[in-house]
Structure formats: C-alpha cells, structure tokens
C-alpha cells in the first residue's frame, strides 16, 4: 500500500477527502483548514464582539460538540475575547437525554465552560413525556419542535445572554434552501440563508410573564459553511466525545425527504451542498421580500434577519432539525399551499428523495401528480405577515405563536390536532394518503 500524500503538506499520508473540492488531506492539515475556514466565516461576518457572552446551544450531538470545541480553540488562538457558555435543553423524555446530557457535562468540564441545563418543564410547564401522555405519540414531534424553537431563546434570556450560536451546518442550510425553494417561499428562503437571525423585540409585549425579553436574542450559525461530513470526521479524528441518538418518539425520523435528497446529491457530486447554500444566498439577494430592508442581501454582513418560530423545527437533534417533523411540516405546507401546480412539484420532488430510491419512485409521480392536483383544492393567497405573538411577544406570523397555541390546547386538556389556524383538515388527509402510498412503494423497493 502506497498511501496518497496530503495535497497541502505533501508529507503525511492523506486521510480525508474534502467534499468541497475533493482535495485529499492529512489529519493535521484537515484540522487546520477546517478551523481556519470557520474563523474566516466568523471574522468576515463580524459575528462576535469582544466582551460578548455567547451561549452555545449544546445537545451533546456531533454538531454542537464540534462547535464548542472549535470555538474554544479559535477564541484562544485568535483572541476573540468572548465568553463561551453551554446551554442545553432537556425535553423531559425519560432516559432520552440522560446519556447526551452526560456528554454535555463532560464537554463542559473538558472545555472549561459554564453549563446550564433547562427543561421544557421549567420553560413551558410540560415535559415531553407529559405531552405524549396527553396527545399520544402521533404528532408529538410538532410540540417538541415548536417548543424547541423558542427554548434556546427563553433559556438565553434567563441567563442574560444576548447571543446564541447553534451547530447548524451546510447540509442543514442546503436542506432548508431546498425545502423553501420547493414551497416557493422566497422570503423565508432569504431569512434562513442568513448567518445571523434574530427574534427582535418590538417591545410592547402584552404578556406580564415576559420580563426577560426572550424576543431579542441574536442567533447565529458559525458552521453554516461546514459540511456535515467534515464535522463528523473532525469529531472522529479529534476523538471528541459526542452522542448520537434518535428521538425515541420518532424512530423513523431520519427518513427525511429533503435530507435524503441532499445526501444523494452529495454522493453524486460533493460540492453540490455548498452550491445549494450559495445558490440560496444568491436567490435571497434577488428577493428582498423579507422583513428587513436588505432582505438578506447583505447575507454575509452582520445584519440580523428576523426569524419566526416556524423556520426551524423538529426534535431529536440539537439543532432542532429533524426529518420526521419536516415531513409533518411539509404536510402542513402542502395543505396550505394555494397553487396546485406548486403542489405537484412539491409532491413529486419530495417523494423522489424520500428514501433515495429515485428510479423506483419515479414511476409513481404521474399518478401522484394527478391525484395531488385533483385533491388539493386551490386556496386564497394568504400573505404571511410577521408580527408578534399576543401572548409571549415572540415573532410569529400568527396572532398567537405556535408554542402558545399548543400550550393553550394542552392546558385546556384538549390538545389541538392542527396548529395552523384557519384551514380545514381535508387536504392534509389527502397528502397523508399520498405519503402512505409512497411509503408502501418504498417497502417494495427496499
């Protein structure tokens, strides 16, 4: 065996093939370029301010573990002068977080960072186990995801921290770009491609329970341009301890549609992931329809794009990205979508990628197409306007945000089946049926 030498130092044997350019690097050179690229992302976007206290949303999973490790390294190497702390959310699923929280505790000790663990119970009055007891296992991911979306902000507010960084990586962003593109949701596309998002306080919260203003927390994703593959390899070769698990309430969670599509694209052409991210940014520049004047046009500057709760969701992962709830989101989006044409496109492409079995499923779209077009009625266009939740002040396109709506339902002991206000359930059922059909197909093709 004559191992290929590293493309950078030409001395050590190569151990990693970089997805972005297929260059083969040795471990030390890989560590160096990986860290340097993240440093470049941070400095070119003026992400951090000296003296700033920054909470890392930590789950013990690969992304947040690598994020914590790299930020500690860079903060020391380049003297950012920021204070890094760890913030973990415990959904309250018995046994589920035990191991991952142990991992976070170990990381906190190892990195010398302060750690705060906050539970859904403390933040919302309900653990996920209690939610499941009440609403059953079906649909509980919606609750988990909606609660998660606000949990880091609420937690940060409790700690008096104004900036939360999360481990969202390039694969996550590419996935979001595709999803929003397929939905035709360009304003949201521009918000989700921005490296910084915020939940700006427009003050005047009607709720007396909102003194801490969790609605003015800056959120950013320093790993936005980092490939998931490289994050995993960094953790692996650096011997970082991370924990991987699926949410026990959604065992099929990772059979996600857009995610599978991204991974299939990567297999064919690894640079596709960053290409999608960059394309998303470019498209965002062309549609200044978002809530801020620049509409994400200054995507690589420091502007904070307001982000409503529904932009990211799901459970199971530290980042709140989860394929299972994506499907649920997609279902709802389909149901809401007014244009049948768009629905066709969405159904077709979604289910292509769903299990990676493009060719086998390809036979089906004609049938699906016809059905989708026939069964999803046209709806009047409801313009999405970003406002504040009447109850908690959180940025929301609805009068009352999803978390508050869900909580209201839970507290009334009468859970809501549909968290979207004001649309009928029928189209959703049709979409479910379609999903069922395609699922059947998968079983046959596996």
């Amino acid at each position, binding site marked *: 065996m004559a*191992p290929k030498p590293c493309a950078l130092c030409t001395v050590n044997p190569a151990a990693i093939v970089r997805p972005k350019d297929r260059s083969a690097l040795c471990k030390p050179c890989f560590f160096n370029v990986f860290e340097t690229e993240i440093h470049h992302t941070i400095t070119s976007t003026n992400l951090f301010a000296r003296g700033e206290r920054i909470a890392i949303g930590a789950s013990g*999973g690969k992304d947040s573990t690598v994020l914590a490790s790299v930020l500690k390294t860079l903060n020391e190497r380049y003297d950012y002068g920021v204070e890094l702390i760890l913030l973990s959310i415990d959904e309250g699923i018995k046994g589920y977080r035990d191991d991952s929280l142990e991992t976070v505790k170990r990381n906190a000790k190892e990195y010398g960072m302060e750690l705060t663990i906050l539970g859904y119970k403390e933040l919302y009055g309900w653990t996920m186990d209690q939610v499941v007891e009440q609403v059953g296992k079906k649909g509980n991911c919606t609750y988990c995801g909606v609660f998660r979306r606000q949990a880091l902000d609420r937690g940060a507010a409790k700690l008096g921290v104004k900036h939360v960084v999360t481990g969202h990586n390039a694969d996550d962003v590419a996935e979001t770009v595709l999803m929003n593109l397929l939905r035709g949701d360009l304003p949201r596309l521009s918000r989700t491609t921005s490296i910084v998002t915020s939940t700006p306080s427009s003050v005047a919260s009607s709720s007396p329970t909102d003194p801490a203003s969790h609605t003015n927390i800056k959120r950013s994703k320093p790993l936005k341009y980092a490939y998931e593959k490289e994050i995993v390899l960094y953790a692996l070769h650096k011997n970082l301890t991370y924990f*991987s698990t*699926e949410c026990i309430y959604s065992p099929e969670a*990772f059979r996600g549609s857009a995610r599978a599509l991204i*991974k*299939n694209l*990567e297999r064919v052409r690894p640079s596709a992931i960053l290409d999608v991210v960059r394309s998303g940014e470019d498209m965002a520049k062309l549609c200044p329809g978002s809530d801020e004047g620049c509409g994400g046009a200054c995507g690589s500057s420091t502007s904070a794009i307001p982000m409503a709760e529904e932009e990211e969701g799901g459970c199971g992962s530290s980042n709140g990205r989860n394929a299972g709830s994506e499907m649920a989101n997609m279902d709802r989006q389909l149901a809401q979508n007014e244009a049948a044409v768009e629905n066709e496109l969405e159904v077709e492409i979604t289910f292509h990628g769903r299990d990676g*079995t493009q060719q086998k499923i390809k036979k089906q779209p004609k049938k699906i197409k016809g059905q989708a077009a026939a069964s999803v009625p046209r709806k009047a266009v409801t313009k999405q306007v970003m406002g504040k939740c009447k109850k908690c002040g959180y940025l929301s396109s609805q009068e009352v945000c999803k978390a508050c709506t869900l909580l209201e339902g839970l507290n009334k002991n009468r859970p809501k089946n549909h968290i979207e206000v004001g649309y009928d359930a029928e189209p959703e059922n049709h979409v479910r049926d379609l999903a069922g059909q395609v699922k059947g197909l998968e079983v046959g093709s*596996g």
Partner: protein
Amino acid sequence: MSSSPENLTVKVEFSGGLELLFSNKRTHTITLPAHTPSTSTTPTTIRDLVIYLCDELMRDPRRDLFVLDGTVRPGILVLINDADWELEGEDAYEVKNGDSILFVSTLHGG
C-alpha cells in the same frame, strides 16, 4: 488472527447511531470469504462486505437504514484503516485480511 487463505478476518466498527442496528455493539470482529461468491476468484469488496453484514450480522430489520441500492446508504461515512474510503475506491475496495473498517452515520442527531 487466524485466517485461512479462503477467509478474511476484519474488524468492523459502527458509530454515529449505526451501532443500534448491530446489537448496539460498536466493534465486531468478523470472518468472511475472501472471494464473493466464495467459489469464485472475485475478491470480496466493501460492497460484498456490506451485504454480508446485513445478512449475517444485522439483527435489526431496518436494513435500508444501512444499505440502499446495494451499497452503503448516502450519509454514512466509511473509513478503511482510518482513511476516507474515497481514497480507496469506495465500495469497490477489495477487503484485505486484518483491515479495520468503520461505518459512521452522519444522519443521527446533531
């Protein structure tokens, strides 16, 4: 390691959640035919190994979480003796006696 010329003994590791599919055990030492089919002279490749693992080692019915279209599912990284399998010809790599092969899922959790 005792291995006749007809067999290969390799170390197989699962990580990133994949161990859940393999009796929740991270490291396995397995012995498999050096040729696939065993009566042929065709060297056993990673592709063959993966099918072998599904047939002989996996107790979990969710085979498609590991294998898709006859090869390793996209989103699962493979390291052959600590090196990216892309350096070694991916699933066409011919498995050698004593190899250490690691499968890491990137799909679970964050």
